């Protein structure tokens, strides 16, 4: 198992000391080297676009790319999550934009490009959009399908909602997006909890979990942890009604107490709504859920993990509990290992970020892998959430990818499984340094990316050893020349005149395995006529080929 942990702040921002909290992550399933991440990170150059973090090397290095609309001075963005389509390379975003706090659903087909993400939906009175996306490869046209859990106050008190599109990649705004209200019980709390979490199986089975507030006192709620399911991509007249009485979903837990504390409740962090759900990519009936609650407001805030093996109809007892835990995040890899990421306050003064990986559904409790173990009292919070109301874990193949925020003191002891800082830092003096690599910089909260490669298949023996001191020269990324069709020289004159010229028709791919063909704007047109070879003649030329942009 290979663990890699990277402080994502680029070297060029070594002087920053922002509270880069509430991180999220999107790994392109079509090319896991391409990763986008988000946090409450301001644009260092100001302006009306907030940045996302981008990596094109699997998370080893990161840069900022300001493409998120709505930034204002000192407030880059409200809640933000992003995800890639399954094979489309399209990145989708759900944000509360900073200037209006409206829900915006966003899209870009070039996560690393400089163009601002396209706004597909803009709507007021929303909270905590949580994006999940895939490409429906078994559906004609292989459309991208996007599901965004969010809390829609336009439908209060039934606020738990999913915003979904069944063909999100190409169509103009709103690209098929529209809200579906999930809640049916008119919660006594006047709304549902902020966390609405979808998870997608490639068969079209969608689960959505939320926290149904049955009562709300201002500092505490009584709630049910609810799961609804749909077996056909959320389509049909009564979507998400596959399980539960009347199709209204199943309570995983009922009458739990959840403190609602927008104050320093655990360390300097607030609590109120922590929830995660994930379906096994190889078994659409195996699904895990995690949430946090407490028996009494002053008691230990505790994460619970449970499993259903019958498609969410019934749920087992707690498989794992973590006292003083927040930010549960679940993922299942391609061979069924379940990953459980969380943060826990230990000793009253230390935030530890753990991941547990189980190959037997937690039948035997796995030893937690400690990703970070940092002071909880420094730096002083500048706003809440301190670390974030969520972190994220996902899996591609047999590799887990995740992101969390933590105190960034460059101390090896804080990262017992290692860490790489891109920003300047001296681990001997345990001091952050500015871009001049000399001026001290204050400790702050940074986002940390990690990957855990379950399967390593290294060569048995190194064939060569790069000599010491010879490093590959550093070279700036070359920006490719403008898109231009290749022009093949003058047409070869056929000996025999070919059949009539006709435009090229790009047939639908027979085997759309990887990557599928997606239109490239502008609309496709034949660049040059293509001649086909006629019936076999005594002497027949082979015609030149010319490139065409696809339809």
């Amino acid at each position, binding site marked *: 198992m290979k663990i890699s942990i990277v402080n994502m702040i680029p070297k060029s921002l070594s002087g920053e000391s922002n509270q880069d909290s509430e991180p999220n992550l999107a790994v392109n399933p079509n090319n896991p080297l391409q990763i986008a991440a988000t946090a409450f990170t301001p644009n260092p150059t100001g302006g009306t676009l907030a940045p996302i973090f981008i990596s094109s090397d699997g998370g080893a290095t990161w840069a900022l790319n300001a493409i998120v609309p709505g930034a204002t001075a000192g407030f880059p963005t409200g809640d933000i999550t992003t995800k890639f389509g399954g094979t489309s390379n399209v990145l989708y975003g759900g944000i509360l934009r900073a200037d209006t706090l409206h829900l915006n659903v966003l899209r870009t087909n070039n996560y690393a490009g400089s163009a601002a993400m396209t706004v597909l939906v803009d709507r007021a009175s929303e909270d905590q959009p949580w994006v999940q996306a895939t490409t429906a490869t078994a559906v004609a046209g292989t459309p991208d399908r996007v599901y965004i859990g969010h809390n829609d106050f336009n439908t209060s008190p039934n606020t738990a909602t999913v915003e979904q599109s069944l063909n999100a990649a190409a169509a103009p705004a709103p690209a098929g997006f529209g809200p579906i209200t999930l809640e049916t019980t008119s919660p006594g709390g006047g709304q549902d909890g902020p966390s609405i979490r979808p998870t997608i199986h490639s068969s079209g089975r969608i689960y959505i979990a939320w926290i149904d507030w049955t009562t709300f006192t201002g500092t505490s709620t009584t709630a049910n942890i609810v799961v609804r399911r749909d077996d056909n991509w959320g389509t049909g007249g009564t979507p998400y009604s596959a399980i539960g009485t009347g199709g209204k979903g199943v309570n995983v837990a009922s009458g739990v107490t959840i403190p609602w504390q927008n104050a320093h409740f655990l360390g300097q962090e607030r609590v109120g709504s922590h929830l995660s759900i994930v379906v096994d990519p190889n078994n659409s009936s195996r699904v895990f859920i995690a949430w946090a609650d407490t028996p009494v407001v002053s008691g230990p805030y505790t994460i619970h993990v449970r499993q259903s093996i019958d498609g969410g109809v019934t749920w087992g007892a707690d498989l794992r509990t973590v006292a003083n835990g927040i930010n549960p995040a679940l993922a299942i890899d391609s061979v069924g290992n379940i990953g459980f990421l969380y943060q826990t306050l230990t000793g009253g003064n230390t935030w530890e970020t753990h991941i547990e990986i189980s190959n037997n559904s937690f039948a035997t409790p796995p*030893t937690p*892998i400690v990703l970070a173990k940092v002071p909880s009292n420094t730096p002083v919070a500048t706003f809440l959430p301190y670390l974030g109301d969520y972190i994220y874990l996902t899996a591609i193949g047999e590799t887990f990818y995740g992101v969390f925020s933590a105190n960034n003191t460059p101390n090896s002891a804080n990262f017992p499984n290692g860490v790489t800082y891109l920003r300047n830092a001296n681990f001997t003096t345990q001091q952050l340094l500015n871009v001049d690599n000399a001026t001290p910089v204050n400790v702050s909260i940074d986002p940390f990316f990690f990957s855990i490669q379950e399967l390593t298949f290294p060569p048995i023996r190194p*064939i060569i*050893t790069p000599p010491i001191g010879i490093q590959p020269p550093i*070279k700036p*990324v070359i920006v490719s020349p403008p898109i231009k069709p290749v022009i093949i020289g003058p047409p*070869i004159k056929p000996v025999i005149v070919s059949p009539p010229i006709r435009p090229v028709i790009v047939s639908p791919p027979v085997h759309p*395995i990887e990557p599928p063909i997606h239109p490239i704007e502008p609309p496709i047109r034949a660049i040059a006529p293509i001649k086909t070879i006629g019936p076999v003649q005594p002497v*027949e030329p*082979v015609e030149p080929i010319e490139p065409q942009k696809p339809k």
Partner: protein
Amino acid sequence: MLKVLLLNMPFVSLERPAIGISLLKARMAEEGLHCSAGYGSLFFAEWVGYWPYEIVLDRISAAMFTGDWMFSKWLFPGRDHSAYVATLRDHLGGDTAEFAAVLAMAEKVGSFLEACLDRFEIGKFDVVGFTTTFEQNLSSLALARLIKDRHPKKLIIFGGANCEGVMGQELHRRFPWIDYVCSGEADNSFPALVKRLDAAEPPDGVPGVIDRRSGASRLAAPPDRIHDMDRLPDPDYDDYFQAIAASSLAQRVRPALLIESARGCWWGAKSHCTFCGLNGSTMTFRAKSAGRVYSELERQSARYGIGRFLAVDNIMSYHYFRDLLPMLKERNPGISLFYEIKSNLKRSQVELLRDAGVWSLQPGVESLSSHVLRLMRKGVSAIQNVQLLRLCREYGIEIAWNLLYGFPGETPEDYAETLRTIAAISHLKAPGVVAPIRLDRFSPNYDEAEHFGLVTVKPFPMYRHLYPFPPESVANLSYFFEYKYSDGRDPEKYVAEVRNQAQEWKKNQNGDLIKLYGSDPELALVDTRQQGAELHYPLHGLQREIYDFCDEMQTLASILELAAARGADPVSVELFLDQLVKTKLMLREGNQYLALAVDTSRRLKSQPTPLRLAS
């Protein structure tokens, strides 16, 4: 009866057992002798932390010998290490977390060695054997020294690849606490030596054993070689899995099993690649029979509940294409395999590898210039290498390969040609590293350095930080050497752009060149290698037929023959081929052509065996 302990010390991978001592344990059992195996490597990782251990294995160049250095620091106290530490700091990019962790780890070596005495219950054993390969020398020497200091009567025996040839003799000569060295294959010599010792007989004449009975370190006779590989027992990995199960690192370690289906190199026996020093004095190729390999895979998989196997063979037996691989395909035992392999494979062979569960390969690609490949006596051409890269991509077989340079006789034009090839294959797997050849002991480049134009041969500079001995002694202990060229060349000058482009290749593997079959056109080549562009090349009729014909490399003559049979004009065919080459849809080398577009439908026909732990 003597009690024997075999130790596997740092630094080696934690994720696989030591096959050498595991095989010896099984051989000892065959001879009625008992021994145990201990994993000092795992214990050290527990002692210092998995991550610091991993830094030495994965993050630091092997040419730094950092693992050896930290044990040398303990073994030879009082030396000035400031120069080494400064170099290490530079190597790790300054005062990074890695640098701090490595220094902290070095401080724990003494306490670790002391703890080993208890952990491995050294007092209970009469003989302690150490296996040493690559960076295990100093850790083994350090613990052996401590054992001898505390228990002078215990016998210390060294074996492993670091004991082959003059290296074994120098180890024995320089380190008096080593009683015996088993040099070369020890399947017979080690049990024979233990039997003699057990009987209190002098180990006279045991082939492969170095002793100092005459006052000097002396090899009694060349070691026996195993001729019939089928007669070897299955390695006994029980101690490894028991150690993992009891370890605090059990959560971190994902074990794979090792299998040795062959020794030596059948290609090397015919044409020794000039840079390769892997086979020492045992180049003769010997392979287990297909039935034996298959049954061993089944037995070991069932015994340890693991289906992932790494073959330690230097090269896969060609016979396995006839027997073992079809057997694995047909019986489908749920096993996945890694092999090193010669790269001149055909489609049918790559497909068979995939169907047999060979999930990962290390092919001997080494270069994209046929001239350079000839210089290194590789026995393949550049276009064959590219064919393999494309076929492995099509069948979803992971490959690891390196692009080597610095071969005497190579020319700047070789790398200009390499650049042209790279420009056409950016959609295929990039090399892991682009690096100059290392001069290894036992390689033709080392043995015949002057003949190859290599001069001023001396051990890698970091060896001097490990051994406080005269230069000739350090040279005898060394395996890696540096050199200069007799013609004064500096390959970096003509390779720089290849290095740059290979870096870009690795970083930007986003584009693709794939085949899409349909009705009109019959075949579209979709090219997204140019960033931001998506070009479709429709091929019809004979165009499609020719392109598919070049799925495996074809000569111009055979292409023209095909075209002629369809009544096509040869001039237009050549022009068509020129177009394909210019647009990087086809690779041409000499009069041979190879289609470059990937047929992504191949992967679906049968997926490779899933790599799931059987337990």
